[in-house]
């Protein structure tokens, strides 16, 4: 592979003292336009040793990893967001500029830059080269996908390009792993800086002059663009076909939904059972009493309630990863755009909203494909309205206990099914209405239109998707896990206080007498207009952890084990709760944000407590109002 350098300008200086990255580590920034194969190259250069975090104060993701296979082990590679220019128009570009200029708190100024450009579209990609090179850091330009360019009859003279840019240039293929020895040479060169030979690029003030410069450079360096990918156009003429396009789209959507729901749900349930068994087995070694209860009902139950989400999250991200890496996700966004704009969002919000039918947690994590921050936040805020699988146990319990077995249309459809479908519809409509509301008020963004680049179709790599799955799993477990664990422990403590000392020694109270039980009584006047009693109050308080906890709490309170004696729980509920209250409870669950995992993920993804708090209060107010109205209406008609 060609590697050239007009001036040996690279020197990795000693780190200034007091840097947070440690005395011996140097940082290398990886930058490039979207779809230039930057992430593939990042994975290639770092392997498994990567770490993902958010930059302070912004929602832009910071990926960094220790570089491997380059002959030294003191280099940290920072993957900057994919950008078209250094125009500080987007949050991504501002982060990139701040990092490159050393103004990003907590991130040391890079010692060298690797600029990745897609050699298939070099003329346009060079537009990013000018502003990046002007920053003046030692930079190497990597022309990626050179294998494809050459295979399709493209040409470029890297030597000439290096002279034009005043920076070393190498032809590489991140997908195949070729040409990377040039990167190794570049990062191991111990040159001394040569001020005199510092290259000066023509001053480029705006997009127009940058484009002209890029066109001139590419023609002077003998760049011959490869034939455009006819294969991609041919595939698109089917996938974007007026008839086949939507049909295939629906097939893909249905397939993803079906797999996540029909395979993911049993896997989650199975994992839950397995973990519960393991928990009770392991705690047999603990003495019977408060310690065992704390470990089993407090800590372990909290950990378990997080872990059971993993199968669904991994399955969903497997699909999204395949769709994204092949390039179909962009087409799906294109097809869905016409529908999504009705509610003020764009096509990119479709897949996350659909995923939310399985679980809001991975769905919110999937909103990262939406670049526009306001659209992304609006999507995150409406996602928990979609009827997730955790609402199902609650709906099923209440429907079984309260909705009579009446069928319509000659037994074709039952009242129970109608009620269930209505609850799904209710959540969906609430999401649409809220999205419209948000997009016409606090998250209005008329000035940022829908601009979507359609990448060429590619074969996804196992490595790329595997790394992403690991990454998502890790983010979820560490971020959501810590919050959930503390909330469960908190709830456990509330359910076991106050401790009384009597003849039999230390004694924890019955649930009804505990702090949380008293809270249930305390809030009874507030929830009585909804048709709920204090037991439902306790259920609602405990289900803030996760919706399905409601069923277990009801079981405990009514003295029946819901797993084995669900019939008696139905009967008990039926006698204790009026019909109005029961229907109101379902409506309440359709709207309220009873899920700590979701709150934790929203907190992480929006990087602030403001949004999850707003969301929780909004959904709670809506749930209360709707439940109040439902109770009133149902009681008036059937009461």
């Amino acid at each position: 592979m060609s590697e050239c350098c007009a001036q040996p300008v690279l020197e990795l200086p000693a780190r200034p003292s007091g840097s947070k990255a440690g005395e011996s580590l140097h940082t290398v920034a990886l930058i490039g336009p979207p779809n230039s194969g930057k992430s593939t190259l990042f994975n290639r250069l770092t392997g498994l040793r990567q770490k993902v975090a958010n930059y302070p104060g912004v929602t832009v993701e910071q990926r960094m990893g220790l570089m491997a296979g380059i002959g030294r082990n003191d280099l940290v590679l920072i993957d900057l967001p994919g950008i078209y220019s250094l125009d500080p128009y987007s949050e991504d570009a501002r982060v990139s500029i701040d990092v490159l200029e050393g103004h990003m708190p907590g991130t040391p100024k890079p010692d060298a830059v690797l600029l990745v450009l897609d050699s298939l579209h070099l003329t346009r990609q060079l537009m990013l080269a000018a502003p990046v090179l002007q920053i003046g850091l030692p930079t190497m330009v990597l022309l990626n996908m050179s294998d494809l360019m050459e295979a399709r009859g493209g040409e470029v003279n890297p030597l000439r390009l290096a002279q034009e840019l005043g920076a070393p240039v190498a032809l590489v293929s991140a997908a195949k792993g070729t040409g990377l020895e040039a990167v190794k040479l570049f990062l191991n060169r111990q040159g001394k800086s040569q001020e005199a030979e510092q290259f000066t690029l023509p001053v480029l003030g705006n997009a127009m002059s940058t484009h002209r410069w890029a066109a001139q450079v590419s023609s002077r360096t003998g760049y011959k663009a490869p034939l455009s990918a006819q294969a991609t156009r041919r595939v698109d003429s089917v996938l974007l076909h007026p008839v086949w396009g939507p049909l295939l789209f629906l097939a893909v959507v249905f397939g993803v939904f079906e797999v996540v729901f029909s395979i993911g749900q049993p896997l989650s349930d199975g994992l839950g059972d397995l973990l519960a068994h393991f928990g009770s087995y392991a705690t047999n070694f603990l003495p019977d009493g408060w310690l065992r209860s704390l470990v089993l009902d407090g800590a372990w139950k909290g950990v378990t309630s997080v872990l059971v989400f993993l199968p669904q999250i991994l399955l969903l991200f497997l699909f999204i990863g395949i769709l994204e890496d092949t390039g179909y996700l962009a087409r799906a966004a294109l097809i869905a755009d016409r529908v999504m704009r009705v509610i003020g969002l764009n096509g990119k919000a479709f897949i996350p909203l659909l995923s939310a039918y399985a679980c809001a947690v991975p769905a919110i994590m999937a909103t990262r494909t939406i670049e526009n921050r306001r659209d992304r936040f609006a999507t995150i805020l409406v996602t928990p309205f979609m009827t997730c699988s955790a609402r199902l146990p609650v709906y099923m319990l209440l429907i079984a206990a309260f909705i009579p077995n009446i069928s319509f249309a000659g037994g074709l459809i039952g009242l129970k099914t109608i009620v269930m479908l209505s609850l799904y519809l209710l959540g969906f409509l609430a999401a649409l209405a809220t999205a419209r509301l948000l997009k016409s008020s606090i998250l209005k963004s008329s000035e940022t239109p829908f601009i979507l680049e359609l990448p060429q179709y590619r074969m996804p790599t196992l490595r790329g998707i595997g790394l992403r799955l690991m990454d998502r799993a890790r983010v979820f477990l560490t971020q959501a896990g810590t919050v959930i664990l503390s909330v469960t422990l908190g709830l456990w403590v509330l359910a076991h206080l106050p401790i009384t000392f009597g003849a039999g020694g230390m004694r924890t109270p019955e649930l009804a007498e505990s702090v949380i039980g008293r809270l249930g009584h305390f809030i009874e006047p507030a929830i009585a207009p909804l048709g709920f009693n204090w037991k439902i109050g306790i259920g609602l308080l405990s289900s803030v952890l996760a919706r399905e906890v409601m069923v277990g709490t009801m079981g405990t309170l009514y003295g029946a084990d819901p797993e084995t004696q669900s019939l008696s729980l139905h009967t008990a509920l039926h006698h204790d709760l009026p019909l109005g209250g029961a229907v109101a409870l379902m409506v309440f669950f359709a709207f309220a944000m009873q899920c700590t995992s979701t709150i934790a993920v929203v907190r992480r993804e929006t990087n602030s407590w403001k949004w999850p708090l707003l969301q929780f209060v909004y959904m709670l107010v809506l749930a209360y109002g709707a439940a109040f109205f439902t109770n009133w209406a149902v009681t008036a008609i059937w009461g």
Partner: protein
Amino acid sequence: MRVLSDLEVGETGVLVALDLPPGVQNHLMYMGFVPDARVKAVHRAPAGDPTVYSVDGMEIALRRETAQSIRMQENQSGAAE
């Protein structure tokens, strides 16, 4: 006045100017939508909007509302490509 959204699928035109807010305009120009660029309409989404345009060998989808603010040369000489 001829605008980008007037292009039929398969038709090519030459861009004259972008009448968009500065931020959006700059963003589109960095994506290749500069004056004198040859832009071709390659696909329309099944619902009739957005449309995929090819510029500098890249394919970019724009909604009609955006494409309406991008002025094109009047002559249709680029129709056959």
